[in-house]
C-alpha cells in the first residue's frame, strides 16, 4: 500500500491544527466562534510575504538555507508577520468585538466576525488581487524514505516547526501564569477577577497567541501550496471541525483533531477521490456533534 497519504495528511493536519488552536481558545475564553480566524491566517501570510519582499528590496537576493526553499528573510518575516497578525486581531477586538462582547450576546459577536471575515478577505483581494502567488518558485526534490513515501526538506522542517510550536503552546497553557490565567478565565471569568486576574490582559494574550499561530499556519500553506486571499476562509470548516473534534478549549485536542482531519482528507483523496476532500470535515463535524458533542478531550461544563 502507498503510504504517501500519511505525510500529506500530517502536513495538512499540522496547518489545520495550528489554526484550530486559535479557534478553540477564542471560543473557550472569549466565548464566540470567530469566523474571521481563517482571514487572520491569510492576512498573516500576506504580511509575511510583504515583509519578505521588503527585506529583498533592502538586501537583495538571499541564498536559501541548506536544502530548503527559503532563506533567513522568510524566518524574520514570519516573526514580524506573527506580530502584525496579533496586532490586527487586537485592533479588530478593540473596534468591534470587545464592544459587542460587552453587550453579552454571543450570536451578535459571531455575526460581526462573519462580516469582518468578508471585509478582510475583500481587502486582501483588492490589495493583492485574487491571483495565487508563492514564496518561492523553486522546485524541491522529494526524497523517498520508504513505504512509497516521499518528503521534501521543507515538509520535514514544517512538521518539526509544528511539533515545537504545539509543545511550546501546551507548556505555556499548563505551566505558566499566563496559561493558568487563560484557563481560569475560560472556566469562570468572575472568579478569575476575584483572584486578581486582569481579564482584559488575558483577552489580549489569547488574541495574540491565536493570531500568531494562524500566521504560522497560513505561511505553511503558502510555502507548501500557494498564497491566495481565500486560503484562510477555505480552511475555516476544517479548523472548526478540528477544534470541536478535539474538545473546545483543549490545545492538544485541537492539534489532534487537526491531524485526524488532515489524515482523513488525505486518505479520502488517495483512496476515494479528490472531489471528496471537502466533505471530510463536514462528515467528521457532524459525527462528533451527534456522537460525542464534547469532543475527544472535552469536559462537561461545570
Amino acid at each position: 500500500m502507498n503510504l504517501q497519504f500519511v505525510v500529506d495528511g500530517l502536513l495538512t493536519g499540522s496547518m489545520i491544527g495550528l489554526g484550530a488552536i486559535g479557534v478553540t481558545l477564542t471560543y473557550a475564553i472569549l466565548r464566540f466562534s470567530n469566523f474571521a480566524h481563517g482571514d487572520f491566517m491569510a492576512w498573516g501570510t500576506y504580511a509575511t510575504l510583504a515583509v519578505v519582499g521588503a527585506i529583498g528590496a533592502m538586501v537583495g537576493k538571499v541564498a536559501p538555507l541548506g536544502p530548503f526553499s527559503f532563506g533567513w528573510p522568510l524566518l524574520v518575516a514570519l516573526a514580524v508577520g506573527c506580530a502584525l497578525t496579533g496586532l490586527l486581531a487586537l485592533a479588530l477586538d478593540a473596534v468591534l468585538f470587545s464592544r459587542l462582547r460587552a453587550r453579552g450576546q454571543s450570536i451578535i459577536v459571531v455575526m460581526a466576525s462573519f462580516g469582518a471575515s468578508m471585509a478582510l478577505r475583500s481587502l486582501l483581494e483588492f490589495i493583492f488581487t485574487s491571483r495565487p502567488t508563492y514564496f518561492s518558485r523553486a522546485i524541491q526534490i522529494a526524497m523517498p524514505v520508504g513505504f512509497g513515501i516521499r518528503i521534501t526538506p521543507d515538509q520535514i522542517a514544517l512538521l518539526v516547526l509544528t511539533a515545537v510550536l504545539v509543545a511550546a503552546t501546551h507548556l505555556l497553557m499548563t505551566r505558566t501564569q499566563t496559561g493558568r490565567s487563560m484557563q481560569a478565565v475560560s472556566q469562570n471569568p468572575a472568579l478569575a477577577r476575584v483572584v486578581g486576574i486582569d481579564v482584559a490582559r488575558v483577552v489580549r494574550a489569547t488574541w495574540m497567541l491565536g493570531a500568531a499561530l494562524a500566521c504560522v499556519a497560513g505561511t505553511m500553506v503558502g510555502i507548501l501550496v500557494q498564497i491566495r486571499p481565500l486560503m484562510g476562509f477555505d480552511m475555516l470548516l476544517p479548523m472548526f471541525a478540528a477544534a470541536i473534534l478535539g474538545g473546545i478549549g483543549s490545545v492538544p485536542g485541537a492539534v489532534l483533531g487537526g491531524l485526524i482531519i488532515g489524515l482523513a482528507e488525505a486518505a479520502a483523496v488517495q483512496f476515494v477521490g479528490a472531489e471528496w476532500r471537502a466533505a471530510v470535515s463536514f462528515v467528521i463535524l457532524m459525527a462528533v456533534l451527534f456522537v460525542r458533542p464534547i469532543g475527544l478531550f472535552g469536559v462537561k461544563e461545570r
Partner: protein
Amino acid sequence: MSGPVLQVDGLVAGYEPGVPIVRGASIRVERGEIVVVLGPNGAGKSSFIKAIAGLVPVSAGKVLLDGTDITAVPAHRMVRMGLAFVPQTENIFPLMSVDDNLKTAGGILKSKEAAERIARMYDTFPDLRTFRRTAAGNLSGGQRQMLAVARALIVEPKLLVLDEPSAGLSPKLVSMVFSMLSDIRKAGVTILLVEQNARAALAIGDRAYVLVEGREAHEGVASELWNDPVVAELYLGQRPQPSTGGAA
C-alpha cells in the same frame, strides 16, 4: 495604620442602572475582628459584599480599606489592595488541579514567594496536599470550601470576606468551617462573614449587622444579638433548635 480595616458608608449598588439592590448600607470592621452580616434570603447580602469586592457597580457611597478609598478599584485589583473574597458559589476553578488553583491566586506574588505560601497552606490544610493533583471539581464540598479559603489566604489579605462558607455543607463540616475561620482570625486575619447560619456565625463573631432590604437594620455584639428580639423575629421559623448545629 490605626482605624478600621473596612469602613463602608452609605453604599448604594445594583446590577442595572436605577435598580439599587444595596440601598445605603454602612458597616465597619475593626482590626482582628470577625464581623458577621446576617439577613433573610434575598436581603442583598451577597450583592453587598460583591459591591465591596468591586463585582457589582456602585452608584453612591464609599468603601475604605485600611483608610484607602477602594470604591472604584476594579475587582481584579482588590487582592493587591489587601481584600480577598470567597464567593458564595463557584469559588474554585473546577477543571484545574488544586495546585493550579492555588498558583492562579498566587499570580500577583513573586513565584518563589507564592511557592512558599502554597507550601504553608498545605501544612495548614493537609487534605489539600493529598489532593494537590486532583481536579478541584472532584473535591468534596468541605474540601472545596477549604481550597477556596486557602486560595484567598495566599495573598495574606488585610481583610478576608466570605459569602456563606457553610452553605450546603453537612453539620459536621459546618462546624469544621467555623473552627477553621476562628483559627484564621487567631492567626491575625480580619474577617467579614456573610451567613445564613446565624447561630454558628454569631458563636465565632465579635459583632454583627442585620441587613434587610439592602441596608443594615440592626447592629450589635454577636453574643447578644442572638437573644435580640429583632433578630429573633427576622429569623422566626428559620431559627434552629439549640441542640443542632443549625442549618441554613
